[in-house]
Each structure stands twice: as C-alpha cells, then as structure tokens.
C-alpha cells in the first residue's frame, strides 16, 4: 500500500478538527447548525452496515455476516459493552463458517 492514502486521511482529519476550533473562536452562534449537520453521519453509518453485511464487491450476498449482525443488534439493544459486541459478531460468523 502506498503512503499517500495514509497522508491524505491524516492531513484532512486534523484539518477538520483545527477548523472547528478556529471557527468556534470566530463565530459564537448558529449552534443549532450543530445538530442538523450531525445527522449526516447517521445514513452513512447505516449504509456502511448494510453494504458490509450484505455485499461482497458488487454483488448482494447473504452469508454468515447476517446472523452475526443480528447477534450484534441484540447485544447493542441490551447495552452490552462495545468490545463484547464486536467479539460476539466475529465469533458468530467464524463459528457458522466452521460448521458450514
């Protein structure tokens, strides 16, 4: 893997943080904008979940990742710690593949 993707990600991530701080000192209102922009993250996360569960490359697939997501959903709903959710999902998929 070449370095420039890493540099691009790191540079722009820091720029965003610094931008917020600089803007925060200049402007002091429009706090309501905060919530409305925050919402953009929601559909993106939802898309990441479905794409990474139900597709491989450009094909839609139903495999061990789907039951793993169901397990994760139940655990998230029951407010299980983050770490356990991740491990349980991986474990479910790994087990199902081992059995299959």
């Amino acid at each position: 893997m070449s370095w420039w993707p890493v540099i691009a990600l790191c540079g722009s991530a820091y720029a965003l943080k610094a931008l917020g701080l600089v803007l925060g000192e200049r402007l002091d209102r429009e706090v309501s904008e905060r919530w409305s922009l925050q919402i953009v993250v929601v559909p993106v996360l939802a898309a990441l979940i479905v794409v990474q569960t139900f597709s491989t490359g450009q094909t839609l697939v139903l495999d061990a990742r789907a039951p793993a997501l169901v397990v994760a959903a139940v655990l998230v709903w029951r407010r299980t710690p983050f770490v356990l959710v991740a491990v349980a999902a991986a474990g479910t998929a790994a087990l199902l593949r081992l059995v299959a």
Partner: protein
Amino acid sequence: MPRGMSNDPIVRNALSIGVATGVYAVSFGVLSVAAGFSVVQTCVMSLVCFTGASQLTFASVIGAGGGVAGALPPALLLAGRNALYAFSLRGVLNGPVSKRALRAQVVVDETTAMAHAQPTLAAKRRAFDLTALCLFTAWNVGTLAGALAGRGLGSPRDYGLDAMFPAVFLALLAPQLRGPDAVRAAVLGALIAVALVTVTPAGVPIIASALGAVPVLLAARRGRRKAVHR
C-alpha cells in the same frame, strides 16, 4: 494508583474509556493490516489521524476494493463531526496556540462527551485532558498490538473479522438513533446504499448514502424559517 485517585469519577471514567478503546483499537489494528496497510502505516494512522470511526471506514472500504477515492469521502464525513465537536468546545480549549493545536488533535467523541458532562469550566478542561491522555495511549498501544497480531493471523474471514466491521458500526450508530428523524435518515441511507451497490464501484454507495439526511435537513430548515417568521 494512589488511594483517592480511583474515587475521582473523572479519573475512573477516563480509565474505563481507555480500556474499552484499547480493545477497539486492537480490532482496528487487525483489520487495517488485513486491508493491506503495513504495521507502520497502521500505527501512523492511529497516531496522526486519531479518529476511530474514520480510520475503520477508511480501512474497510479500501479492504473491500473501494480505493482511496471511494474510501476518503465517507471517512471524512465521519471525521467532520470532530469539527463540530471542536466548535462546541470553544471556551474550554483556550490557551496559547501551541496548546490549542495539540488539543485539537484529541477532539473526538469521548473527550468531547466527557468535557461536556462536567459542571464547571475547570472540571471540563481536566476531564478533556485526562480522557485524551487515556484515550491516546490506549488507542495507539492497542493499534500496535492488533497490527502485530494481525500479521500472523492469515485470512481475516476465518475469524469472522469481516463481520466485526458492521457490528462496530452498529454500536456507533445506535446511540445516534434518537427520534424519528434519525431513524428515517438511517433507513433512507441504507436503502440508497443497497440500491447502488450492484451498479456503482465500491465506495460510491457509502458516499451517496449521505443524501439520506437531505429530507431531514430540509425539514429542519423549513422549521427554522417558520420560527423566524413568527
């Protein structure tokens, strides 16, 4: 740890955030190496980029063959919330430019939440700095451990690591699903992505899914305008 320190709720919370983050960081390290980044590149990302969800998105889209053009926009969309956090922390993070520049680097979900949860300005600053210290240490140590372990793992699919990404994203999404607007945006985003996944290159469905927030944003704007006219 000296007695008394563990009784301080700020210290206690900062430490437990550190522990949870450390394990999350291990999974990032493993997944990043599986996506094709070297151990050094993985560690540099955690040190310099230092924003979990973005790094995870970046590695997962690249690992799925999305390329940088597909991976960078969704990663930056997620990193964009740090700009909003930094904005909300004005007044808390003041001081000389060098200190502010350093603190800007550690403006993320956990540090912001901990700072805003405190009643006084002094406590906010202390909570921010302590959480940042625990978080930064745990995130980078965990990343290194994960990246080193990931090298010897073989196929990440055998361990179900590909199922770990969506689970982690779900855990990140759940607390944000407050109210019907957020749920609507999430469903719309998911539908857009599923509709596009078979017809566009990897990464595009994720970028396009941001449009799922448009109806909610438009409704919010209409609401504000109405409030102004009244």
